Each structure stands twice: as C-alpha cells, then as structure tokens.
C-alpha cells in the first residue's frame, strides 16, 4: 500500500533582500493513513515552509510530492485549489474565522467552494461537523461570542467538513492557554482515534508529545523522525489539571459520539 503522503527531495529557496534563504534542502517524508505526526523545530528551521508545501499553498523548487495518489508538484493553480478543498483541512494558530459570520456559516465555507453540495446539504454537514467538536449548540454564535478554545474548535470543524484525507494544524495551540491547549489536543486525539490523519506543526515539545510520531526539522533538513516514546493522553492530563479557570468558562462535552 502506498503512503498517504510522500515527499522526496524537497528543495525550496527564498530570496529575502540580498540573502538567499535555503528553507528546505532535500526533505524526504512519508506519512501513512491514520498517523498523528508532530513536526517540530526552532523558528527558521523550515518547518513552516514544509507545512505550506504539504498544504498545497506553496510549490517546491524541486522534489516530488504525492498526496493520496496525486502528483501535486505537477498540478496547476486551480487543481491545487481543488486538492486543498477536497483532501486537506487547515487549522491555524489564529483560528482565521470570518468575523460577523456565524460558526455554522464558517464551517460551511469549504462546502461552498465544492460546488456540488446544495445549501441544505451543506448546512446539515456543517452541523454534523460542529457536533463532532461539541459545538452544535453554538452554531448560530458569532466568533466574538466564543472563547478562544471554542473558536479553534469551530476551525477544526471547518477543517473536517469536507472529509479530508489529512488535517494540517499549524501551531493550533499557540494562542491558547494551557488548559484550552489540552482541550484542543484532546479533540485532535479523539479525531485521530476515529481514523483521521493529522499533521501538527508545533515548536512546543509538551504539545508534540500528544502526537504518535515526532519529526524535527532543523536547517531545512529532517534531523529526527521517531515514534513518541510515551504518548501523553490529553484527557488524562486534563483531569490532572487544576480546574481554577474552568469555573469561569462554561463546561460542555468536548467530543460527543466518540468511540472509546
């Protein structure tokens, strides 16, 4: 069986003023279906560039990228848009929800660009997706009426709405406090337990331990790639966490219909 994602010899250079930045200098990586991979590394290591290429937002100078059987490096702009729409889900550090737009409509957004989905179907699927992150009750709330953790869960619901083969999360906990970060990691772990492949970019080692496999990028090359020795369980960590702030924030089921 071929890997879900395979890159070979990725090279990417930038011209920043007069200096040439060798962001990627020959990266090889394979990710199988159902994996939960954390990509780490210091800032400037090239992990963001790798993330952008994996997310089909950027193209490498050279090298191969095969995603779910498609040779991504050969695709044109419209084809890349289609791949992003059908096969990928994005979760960003700053949530990137549309302001003055309800949670439901935010989640529906990728379906709008899919074309073949009727408005009624889109709404149904968006509600299902929100239910998976425990926010079906907040479907009509606007982003400014939601906490940071809730906004990030709306973003996760949006990333899943098109049943992607891969969810790419770029520092998803970077703007969140420790407890909310744990909640988000729990959502990711639960999604992964349900078979969704996740690639998480983070420079925080204590977030990376929730992934099953850790890849470290340094100076444009992969310097470490190994299974996490002791994968932390976000639910257990959350249980140990003092509930000081929790009293202030409303409690709701974090993930409903989850298979244990």
């Amino acid at each position, binding site marked *: 069986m071929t890997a879900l994602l395979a890159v070979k010899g990725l090279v990417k250079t930038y011209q920043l003023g007069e200096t040439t930045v060798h962001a990627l200098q020959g990266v090889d990586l394979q990710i199988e279906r159902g994996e939960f991979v954390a990509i780490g590394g210091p800032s400037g290591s090239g992990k963001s560039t790798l993330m952008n290429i994996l997310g089909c*937002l950027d193209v490498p100078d050279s090298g191969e990228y095969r995603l779910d059987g498609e040779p991504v490096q050969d695709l044109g702009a419209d084809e890349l*848009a*289609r791949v992003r729409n059908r096969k990928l889900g994005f979760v960003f550090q700053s949530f990137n929800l549309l302001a003055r737009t309800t949670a439901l409509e935010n989640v529906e957004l990728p379906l709008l*660009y899919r*074309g073949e989905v009727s408005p009624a179907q889109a709404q149904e699927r968006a509600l299902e997706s929100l239910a998976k992150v425990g926010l079906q009750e907040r479907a009509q709330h606007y982003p400014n009426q939601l906490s940071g953790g809730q906004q990030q869960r709306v973003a996760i619901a949006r990333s899943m709405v*098109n049943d992607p083969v891969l969810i790419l999360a770029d520092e998803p906990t970077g703007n969140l406090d420790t407890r909310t970060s744990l909640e988000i990691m729990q959502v990711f772990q639960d999604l992964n337990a349900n078979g969704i492949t996740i690639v998480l970019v983070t420079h925080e080692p204590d977030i990376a331990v929730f992934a099953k496999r850790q890849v470290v990028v340094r100076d444009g090359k992969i310097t470490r790639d190994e299974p996490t020795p002791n994968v932390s369980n976000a639910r257990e960590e959350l249980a140990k966490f003092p509930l000081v702030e929790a009293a202030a924030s409303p409690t709701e089921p974090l993930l409903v219909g989850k298979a244990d």
Partner: protein
Amino acid sequence: MRFAGLIHIAWRSLARNKMRSFLTMLGVIIGVAAVIAMLAVGRGAGETMNSSIAGLGSNVINVFPGSRTQGPARMEAGASSRFREEDVAAVRKEAGAILYITPVARSQAQLKAGGQNWRTSVLGAYPEYLSIRQWPLTSGAAYTVSEERGAAKVCVIGRTVADNLFGAGSDPTGLSVRINNLPFRILGVLESKGQNSFGQDQDDIVLAPFSTVQKKVLGNLYVSSMMASAVSEAAMPEAAQQITEILLRRLRLPPGAEPDFTVRTQTEIAAAANAISGALTVLLSSIAGISLLVGGIGIMNIMLVSVTERTREIGLRLAVGARGRDILLQFLVEAMAISLVGGLIGVGLGIGVAAVLAGAQGWAVKVSVSSVAVAFAFSAATGMFFGWWPARKAARLNPIDALRYE
C-alpha cells in the same frame, strides 16, 4: 461555486459595512440621477427651444413664383405671378408632408381710423397663416373660413398698427378701420413678434382674408406666393420636394426643366437649432458622464480598501479551496451589487429630481425610457469596469502571504 452563493457572500459583506456601502453607492446614485435628470432637462430644453425656433419660422416653407424673362430684362421674383388659388388647393390635397398651406397676396395700403392714418402692408391669407407662423392673438379672434370664402371685410392687425392708429397699448377689437377707403372691421390684435432677423418690424402688418385682399384690395386673380408648414421639422425636405413635384406637374413644365418657381425653407435657422441642441446634448452628457466616472472611482477606491482589509479572509478562502476566479467573482459581484443597487436608487432619484425641476421651472422636462436604460446600463458597466482591478488584485493574492497578513 454557485452563483446564489456568490450573491449571498457579496450581500453579507456589504451588509457588514452598511454606512460604507451606502456612501460608495451614493457616488453611483448621484451619477445615475444626474444622467437621468440632465437628459430629461436637456430634452425638455430642446423641445422648448425647438418650439420657439419653430415660432421663428424654421418650420415654414415659402414658395415664390419664378422670375420671368421679358426680352432681355429679367423681372424680379414673383413678377410672373403664375400661381393660382387652385395650385394651392392641389398642393394641400396631394402633399402628405404638408400640415398647413395658404396663398399669400401682398399689398401696401393706406389705413385710416379716427383722426390717424398709417401706411402699412396688407397681407391676404387663409386663417391657417396664423398657425403656420405660430402667431397667437392678444385679443379678439382670427377670421373664420366662411369669412374667408365670403371675402368679408374683416382683419386682424399687428401691434404697431394698433399703436399708431389707436394709441399705445389700446385694444381696437371691434372697431373699424378704412383700408384704401374700404371699411374693415378689426377682429383682433396680433401678439407682438418684434423685429425679424433682418430688422424688419413684423408687427407692422394687417392680415385679412386672402379672397378679400385679392379681389377688393389688389383686384387680380393671382397668388403672389404660398406659405406652408411641414408636419414636422424632419419632414421639411420631403415637404419641399412634394411641393416642387406637384407644382412642376401643374405648371406643365417638361420633366427635367428648371422650375419656374422657388421653394425656400429656413434651413439656416434649422441648422442653427440643430447645432445648439447638439451642443446642449454634448454638454449635459459630459457632465453626467463625469459624475458617473467619479462614482466609479469611488467604487474602485472602496473595493481596494476592502481587498486590503480582507486580505486574511481571502487567504483563508484560498486555503479552503477557493480558486482565483471564485475570489475574482466574489469581489466583482460586490462591485456590481453596489453599482446596480445604486443605479436603481439613482433612477428613482433622477425621475424625482426631473419631476421637481419640471414643476419648479415649468419646463417640459421629460424622462425617457431610453435615458433610464442608458443610465442603468452605464452604472452596471461602471461597477464592472472599476470593480475589475481590485477583484483581480484580490484573486492574485498569494494564499500564504494573505494568511499571514496583519
């Protein structure tokens, strides 16, 4: 992406910034309203001008008998006096482009009334003469067709004649005047027309039935000239052509012969009128065009601001699968929505302004369907044209940079 979805997205984004959308729209509203009101006023002014120019005689056709050569001496025009009243009747019957026609008999006569006397020209013509020259009366009424047929000794007199015989500002309607010692009853006084373009006093005239002047003042059977008006200004050349053909036939001139008469239209007046109304149209449409242009630049400005402001939104849309053309269409639809809604409001406002102007100025302000259609089409085109560049700018954003944009 579905078109309904695009409309929905555009609507929501405009509704998010109600004040800004409205102010942007205002540019288009004013532009379109200006086009419609200006064209309505221009049309009204044009019509008002045309009718006053028609009053000057641009619609009038004069037919003079040709000069006749007697031996070596060529006589003046009209000297042959070869038209008869039957020729006039024939032209009236056969020429479709003619609205009114009358024979004209001209004479100079000495007038006496009370202790005063005055020499002036006496013009014999059918009552239609007043319609041809668009010449109303200030008091009394014109003579009737039966008075014309009966060669009644009645007349209407010009202001100058009334002033000289009966005193300035007098109304001699119903009084009597002697023309070459024959007593005539004055039926009315003509409105003052002042001087014509050659400095001749047009009010120094007595108008009497053609038959009366022909038989009782001149004592001959000829028609010294004919005066006619065409059904419209546009029909002038056709009317002149018809008159020529009919008269050639009736005067039994061989085909291709030089006509023995002259058909004269006031083409220079009509040409001047056309030039003025053309200039007026150019002036008004350039003012209107400029206001639409300014409205369009307003749209472009706001769309550029909007694209910059929503860079992250564009980045996100690209990341979740929007293609460049989806983004392009989204912004184009927004620009079109502004210009079309603005255009609709502008049409309403323009009609309102035109109506108010019509009421206030008493002009014949007319809103035409075509001006509404043109204004609306232009506002749509403005949205398309000025929305294009910002929309393309949005569509060409790099998703990575757009997502990171602060």
